[in-house]
């Protein structure tokens, strides 16, 4: 009843082609962004910021990057962790080696370096596809692991391969407390999400999708696979690399190559698959599912146990967490193979017809 576009007439192309053609959607998104910027800082405590919201925001950004490559361009990648590592270590090197380097520039240069490395590891995609490509990108993972563990220059000759940063600030704004870190990551995410949304709606996004749907046909109608595939690798790696730099700088502040292991790559791929391939908002669902759910389960299970008078051991909770989490993944993949984002759009479709579905 409330969610319906009746009476919203478009009088110009611009109005017709805006991101959210339905006014209710537009207001809701603006409301949510304002809520995230203004209300969330007033409501939540330090724990939520540090342990849940900041990782959620950064991994959403990384998932956004993975989704561009996997969901929009159809190139399966298992190298996301590697590109995060490249972003983090490149940003670190720019930051400490160049005196007075602004933080924002370091982070973006980290992303940029990751983009270059991404293009390099994207070259095999011109010849191999599908699972074979996944294996080829896995090489990126092992290569970066090797580089950051073996070549001391990249880790500033740190004795153990561990690096750390401190005194982060942007034009006098100290990014030292959880609130500022949250706002910093949120700003990044909003800008990058907008960028990604617009990119996928533009010519380049359509090229990616054409390649994804059928690359031979796309080539026949005049899309250059080289450009389309490598640009997807570049943009995706840029997003992932920036997320990696944020993960190192803002979330961990001190990290080792193990922070970007192959597990991270799998985690990001799962986020995208569960959230919804080829959907921007799916990333947020996927990231929420993977980041928040295990921690929520871990905290709620003992409480639930207390309610019914059963004491669950720490190991028991941990195992139950894995079982329930795995079960839910299977449930979602069976019930909705297109990801949670599809559930969301089905829900919206139903809401439009409500309360008269026939």
């Amino acid at each position, binding site marked *: 009843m409330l969610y319906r576009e009746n009476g919203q007439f478009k009088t110009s192309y611009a109005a017709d082609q805006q991101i*959210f053609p339905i006014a209710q*959607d537009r207001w*809701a*998104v603006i409301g*949510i*962004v304002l*809520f*995230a910027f203004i209300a*969330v800082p007033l*409501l*939540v*405590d*330090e*724990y*939520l910021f*540090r*342990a*849940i*919201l900041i*990782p*959620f925001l950064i991994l*959403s950004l990384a998932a956004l990057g993975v989704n561009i490559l996997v969901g929009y361009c159809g190139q399966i990648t298992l190298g996301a962790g590697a590109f995060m590592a490249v972003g983090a270590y490149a940003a670190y090197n720019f930051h*400490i080696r160049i005196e007075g380097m602004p933080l924002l520039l370091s982070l973006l240069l980290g992303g940029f370096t990751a983009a270059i490395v991404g293009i390099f590891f994207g070259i095999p995609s011109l010849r191999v596809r599908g699972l074979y490509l996944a294996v080829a990108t896995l090489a990126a993972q092992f290569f970066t692991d090797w580089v950051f*563990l073996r070549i001391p220059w990249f880790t500033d000759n740190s*004795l*153990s*391969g*561990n690096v*750390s940063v*401190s*005194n982060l600030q942007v034009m006098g704004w100290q990014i030292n407390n959880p609130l500022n870190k949250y706002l910093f990551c949120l700003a990044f995410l*909003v800008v990058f*999400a907008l960028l990604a949304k617009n990119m996928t709606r533009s010519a380049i996004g359509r090229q990616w999708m054409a390649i994804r749907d059928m690359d031979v046909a796309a080539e026949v109608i005049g899309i250059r696979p080289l450009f389309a595939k490598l640009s997807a690798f570049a943009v995706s790696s840029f997003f992932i690399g920036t997320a990696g730099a944020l993960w190192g700088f803002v*979330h*961990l*502040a*001190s*990290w*080792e190559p*193990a*922070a970007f292991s192959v597990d991270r790559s799998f985690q990001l791929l799962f986020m995208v698959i569960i959230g919804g391939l080829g959907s*921007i*908002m799916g*990333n*947020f*669902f996927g990231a*929420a599912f993977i980041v*928040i759910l295990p921690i*929520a389960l*871990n*905290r*709620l299970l003992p*409480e639930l146990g207390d309610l019914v008078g059963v004491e669950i*051991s*720490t*190991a028991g*909770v*941990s195992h139950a967490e*894995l079982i329930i989490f795995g079960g839910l993944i299977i449930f979602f993949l069976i019930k909705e193979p297109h990801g949670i984002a599809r559930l*969301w759009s089905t829900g919206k479709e139903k809401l439009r017809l409500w309360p008269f579905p026939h």
Partner: protein
Amino acid sequence: MNLRKLASMASLSAIVLSSLATLAVAAPAKEQFFPVLVTRTGPIAPNATPWANGYIDYLKLVNAKGGINGVKTVFEECETGYATDRIVECYERLKGMHGGATVFQPLSTGGTFALTEKAPVDKIPLITAGYGRSESQNGAVFTWNFPLLGTYWVGSEVAIQYIAKKLGGVGNLKGKKIALVYHDSPYGKEAIPVLEELSKKYGYEVQLLPVAAPGVEQKATWLQIRQARPDFVLLSGWGVMNLTALREAQATGYPRDKMLGNWWSGAEPDVRDVGEGAKGYSAMTLQHGAEPNSKVVKEILATLHAKGLGTGPKEEVGDVLYMRGLISSMLAVEGVRKAQERYGKGKVMTGEQVRWGLEHLDLDQKTLDAMGFAGVMRPVQTSCLDHMGSSWVRIHTWNGKKWEFVSPDWYQADANTLRPMVMLASGKYAEEKKLKPRTPEECNK
């Protein structure tokens, strides 16, 4: 649209979690809270579980004996799975509970690095008994880190002493070849700088052989050992990697009595399954080995396990890693006790006060004996500038069935070698972080 879910998720979890947090905070006062970061699942659980059991059993024992001058201990476990991001999450979750955490002991080098950045902000000391970053011994720079009882650098230095002794003097080290088989992580790499520093002095050759985590794939490593025939092999393993290394040594016929493990490569789970095949293999310990006959263990068995109040299986009480957890716990409790001497007996101490206590630990042999640690460990004395407190290492050998000490087994690390390295590394850290090291005057405040 996309952000709608984010916000609803955030607000929902905010409601749920903050209500949980209020539940937790409503505990009665007069309790000293010890958070316990545990790894009871995953590939390193066999090693980390006895540690956690020992840690908790000692806290229970303290309560059974009336608490710390009347202040009861209370603890809360959080499962980390040895993942750095979960360690950070657990830290954030636990640090504010029950009126604030006393100390954190992450039992992970990666976790130690991450928490080192957070501890000074929250003013909670970090005890890393035997692990963590070796340069954090310098309390002037690492004001909240306490690598009590030893670091990996201490271990490496002692390893060379041990080898020199076996060869009949440091003069015989010249021209010898020593291989280091290490877990390819910040943890495993900690041993390298000291070995390289000493090789300049004594003229032996170091061969570095990294093993990718978790360490089940070592065929290539041992092939290299077979070809190079090093005179000694040092092992910095963790969990399943140790077992594999010993099996490979057996397969390649490398003599086990020429192998020396660090203190994560010298517990029962590391050798038990190889049994006779590991006979002759030695490992360093943090002063203690398996101590089933010590007074404190008997006390725990009598007051806790006999009544069904113990943690974990009764059979493991007194094992090497159980003892490690127990001693780590004891050091934390003694830090609180010391702090109470200054800030008021029978009061709950804050993290900052406990740090003072940990910086002024003075456990002489009489005190240790009275606490039931006779024969288990030697005195510990810390100061503001020395956060380690003791540099004694004991070496034990596997006889095919259990670990036993074969004298001479006590070694003390040479401070003349290590102190300059600690100062150099911590100085570099201070410079990077733009920290001003504490002066001795500031210490006494």
